[in-house]
């Protein structure tokens, strides 16, 4: 993998780190499998791109994209809480609706930003080559958001949110307003995912109606790979592991792209990626089993 390619991989991994945080929030903290993200990732990109194209300040546009994502999360929560629609189905409904909404927001299936100002524009005159500037900017941005999220989850409110996911009845018995926490959690989660979409559109020059497809899979893979490699109960490390998991997922794709010397071709990409991620998930388990076996042998005096 060339340096240029590595920097690009790092940048995309960092951006999807935000997606992983969002998925962690719903999937792990709230225990609410949320497929809205496939739509809200594109929504963040679409809203931001549409505003930038109509000459709105990129930072303001990014913030608006983030808010739009949060609103999508609220809709899913509302369908689930108000009408008792199963969470999976509620999120599929929102995701489906968002496809059309995204087309409307953009006015066409693909909106280009190649020549427009972005959040990166103010830093472009500093003499740092784009291949370093982009991952550096995205890195600082994503890590800052990650630290803020970890701090938030350690506040009284954040703890209450975690309690809701861990044990809804217990949380209710302790006076936590469960519904409000679900609303807030889904809004925050989809806001983060939309933020990722907004950043992706700006660093890569386009928003496309298909860009959100599979976001949930990428997010889940990142969360699980991160958890497997860095298991911890400390909030900051958990959030950090989301980012690391996301980068590792992208490195796996990067490796798969370079796997042609092993006799693979372009159409095998998704399979190789799945195998690599699968390997990352299986290895720690195998190692644990092997260690347990070794310990058992030792306990038996080494003659087993």
């Amino acid at each position, binding site marked *: *993998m*060339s*340096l*240029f*390619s*590595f*920097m*690009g*991989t790092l940048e*995309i991994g960092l951006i*999807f780190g935000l997606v992983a945080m969002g998925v962690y929030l719903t999937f792990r903290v709230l225990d609410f499998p949320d497929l809205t993200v496939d739509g809200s990732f594109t929504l963040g990109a679409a809203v931001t791109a549409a505003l930038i194209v109509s000459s709105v300040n990129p930072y303001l546009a990014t913030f608006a994209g983030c808010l739009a994502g949060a609103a999508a999360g609220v809709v899913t929560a509302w369908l689930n809480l108000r009408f008792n629609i199963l969470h999976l189905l509620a999120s599929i409904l929102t995701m489906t609706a968002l496809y059309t909404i995204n087309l409307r927001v953009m*006015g*066409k*299936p*693909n909106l*280009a*930003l*190649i*020549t427009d100002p972005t959040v990166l524009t103010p830093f472009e005159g500093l003499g740092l080559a*784009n291949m370093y500037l982009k991952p550096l900017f995205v890195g600082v941005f994503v890590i800052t958001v990650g630290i803020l999220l970890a701090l938030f989850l350690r506040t009284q409110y954040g703890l209450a949110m975690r309690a809701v996911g861990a044990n809804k009845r217990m949380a209710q018995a302790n006076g936590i307003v469960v519904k409000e926490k679900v609303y807030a959690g889904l809004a925050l989660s989809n806001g983060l995912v939309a933020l990722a979409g907004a950043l*992706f559109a700006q660093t*890569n*020059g*386009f928003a*496309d109606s*298909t*860009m959100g*497809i*599979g976001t949930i899979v*990428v997010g889940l893979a990142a969360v699980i790979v991160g958890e497997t490699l860095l298991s911890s109960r400390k909030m900051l490390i958990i959030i950090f592991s989301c980012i690391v998991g996301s980068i590792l997922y*992208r490195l796996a*794709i*990067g490796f798969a*792209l*370079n796997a*042609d*010397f092993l006799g693979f*071709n*372009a*159409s095998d*990409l*998704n399979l190789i990626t799945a195998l690599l991620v699968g390997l990352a998930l299986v290895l720690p388990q195998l190692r644990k089993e092997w260690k347990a076996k070794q310990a058992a042998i030792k306990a038996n005096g080494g003659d087993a």
Partner: protein
Amino acid sequence: MKFTTIVKAAALAAGVLCTTAQAADQTYIATTAIVEHPALDSVRAGIKDSLMENGYTEDNLKFTFESAQGSPATAVQIARKMVGDEPDLIVAIATPSAQAAVTASENIPVIFSVVTDPLGAKLVSNIEKPGGNVTGLSDMLPLAQQLELLQEIMPNLKTLGVPYNPGEPNAVSSVEALKVIAKEKGIKIIEAPAPKSSDVAFASQKLIGKADAIYCPIDNTIISALEAVVKTGIDGQIPVFAADTDSVARGAIAALGFNYYDLGKQTGELVLRVLNGENAGDIPVKFAEGTNLAINPKMAARMGIEIPASVTARATQVIE
């Protein structure tokens, strides 16, 4: 035992290095597409064949291909990988892959293909002189050629009725473009808006007596209810033409469309020009030429016209 393992590993590593290392006199073309489907795969085959026909061989040409398997995020990663590999030229097929390549590449020439609207996609800022390191092939519908075909079949064509859905951005833009070209050719366009597929029959019936012929643009609403337009054509003795060749089998009289392998060949010509030393930014964006001509003589008779022999002679597909 151990020594042989090391030797084997070293041999494997050397093999890997040799295959990835690139001979100095090899031309390296990196191609990428957003997805793999028959049309896009034909484009790639066309590009490679046009290079092979012009002196390149399996020995002096390194031709790689990556598919993003539908994911724009992967398309971006592929673009970064390609730029890092420093090929002589990048060919990016379809809009998101092209945008990713243009954003990633600063020095390596990028040739895009199968991009309908390169200006709207901001791949180039000027069609005649793209500037920078980018040029390519647009598969914008060959509207002028299509109208010429209509005039050849119906020399007295003065008014053309166009049913379309005003809510479909692609249809709206193609009707706008059609109006400009029709005016140059002395044809008046009568719009027949049909926002839903259930409106298509009524919209086309309104054209009876007002238009000499009906032309169905590429519009999902109209295409999904094409049979309603065809029925109007038969009942009202008004010939129905289409923008896509697939509609001819469903009852349109004729259509001029693309053969995607030929689009690859047309893209290959641009690739060759850049390889021969021209600066990509100086080569005007090329608009694809329609090469598939489908006709339906039986339906033409039912709608009251005859397809001239000159058209029949060059048809690539005749619906019996």
